[in-house]
């Protein structure tokens, strides 16, 4: 699989753990300078940030931008008013960082250049191909569906969790998921035939 600009797997957080109750004490501790607490926030929400970025920027830039987003968050933690709202807050930082990236690259980088060559990994080669093709196909969908699908399949969030992190209604998330999947299936069947 193409490594999508990222170098090694880290343990994924459990996305179904109630974010608000767990995040608040971690944010409070991180604000007091507890770097281990900030590390815990990173491990809990890196997938979310990765998904938001993958829907907006070239995949080979995602790893650097994930770090940028968390560094910005660390430096601006004092500005977060509701400690339990860390997840939507860092998702907003990620969207803004992606907008900056796109503004800077707009005239110089074609969208397709970003997908890296496949690299040897421990992941099953067929599924790795699926991941690369799926990321490319999702990125070719209308903007409204990209982030919802990435949050669903990359970050492993369910509909209500996506709604909580994006400000969309449950109805809109459901529509985006179903229409997006429908279009994705069409794209993937037109392309390599995998999915």
């Amino acid at each position, binding site marked *: 699989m193409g490594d999508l600009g990222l170098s090694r797997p880290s343990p994924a957080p459990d996305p179904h753990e109630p974010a608000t109750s767990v995040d608040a004490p971690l944010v409070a501790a991180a604000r007091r300078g507890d770097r281990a607490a900030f*590390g815990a926030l990173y491990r809990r929400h890196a997938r979310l940030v990765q998904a938001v970025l993958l829907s907006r920027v070239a995949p080979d830039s995602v790893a650097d931008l994930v770090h940028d987003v968390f560094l910005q968050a660390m430096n601006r933690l004092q500005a977060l008013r509701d400690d339990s709202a860390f997840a*939507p*807050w860092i998702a907003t930082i990620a969207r803004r960082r992606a907008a900056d990236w796109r503004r800077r690259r707009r005239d110089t980088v074609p969208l397709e250049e970003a997908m890296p060559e496949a690299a040897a990994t421990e992941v099953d080669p067929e599924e790795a191909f699926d991941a690369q093709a799926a990321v490319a196909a999702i990125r070719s969908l209308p903007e409204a569906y990209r982030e919802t699908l990435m949050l669903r399949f990359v970050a*492993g969030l369910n509909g209500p969790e996506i709604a909580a992190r994006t400000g969309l209604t449950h109805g809109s998330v459901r529509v985006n998921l179903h229409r997006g999947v429908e279009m994705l299936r069409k794209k993937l069947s037109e392309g390599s035939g995998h999915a």
Partner: protein
Amino acid sequence: MRDEDDALFSGRGALPEDLARLERALSQLPLPPEPDWNARPRPERRPPVFAWAAAAAVLVIASAALLLLGRDAWRVETLAGKPSLGGVAFAGRIALGGRVTTDTRSRARLDVQGLGVVELEPGSALRRVRGQGPERKLALDHGTLTAFIQAPPRQFVVETPVGVATDLGCTYTLSVARDGRGKLAVTLGRVTFTHDGLESFVPAGLWCPLSPSGDGVPRRDYASDTFLAAIATYDSTQGDAPALERVLETAEPSDAITLWHLLPRVDETARARVAARIAALIEVPADVSRERVLALEPAALDAWWGAIGMGPASEWRTTSPKQALP
């Protein structure tokens, strides 16, 4: 469909095989290695003597700022060039009555306290004005802004010379030139745009042109070229009959949202044509008579909106629908 019946939405139960495979593949994408957070520099700690002096200075400055600006001045950050602050502004912040202007090389970021940020592009003029109740309100006199808002619906409002954009939780770009022409494009979430009692509902993936006479109907980014050309002609001819016919001919089911917005904007004869085309493109509620829609009865319009699949109209409305002129 109920949540528990929908594994894609609820995350519970088995997904179809192709989606399960997709989920397995994408959930294994590697994450970047975690940085060594302890290696990041910590903020410098000043000796206590300086800390006391600094605290006293901050207290004096903060008191002066509070007196001058009120309690909720919003921070303005330079992104490029030299944006300028005017009106009620102090120490890089603006309060009610403050303004930010950017020249052709400047960009600025405004921290909308507690709600998100607004980025102001070159050649723009933005003022902070009083909103109603909890509303945070800006006035974009001319130029372009992008709003990244994470807030409950209807708390962030931007007025322009040609109408008012009300945030329902989203990211959007709003531009308006000095002649009143412009564009509202929504990339995430939803925005309503109101002009003279007519309200447009603009979800992510749609945009609408703005003009001195208000807003054009929202249209999808990915509508067919023929439909986009037809609706542009309709805008430029201010709604003549052949242009409307071309819009109706080229509309696809996913353009029903555009046609729905035409209903209160056209005369009765044209409205019947538009309603018939919507009913041909999507499944409209059988228990809502066509006559009620043609009479622009709010409940009937809302029921048809519900059939488009963008959530109930009650989630959107900030005003009551207005009867179009005969």
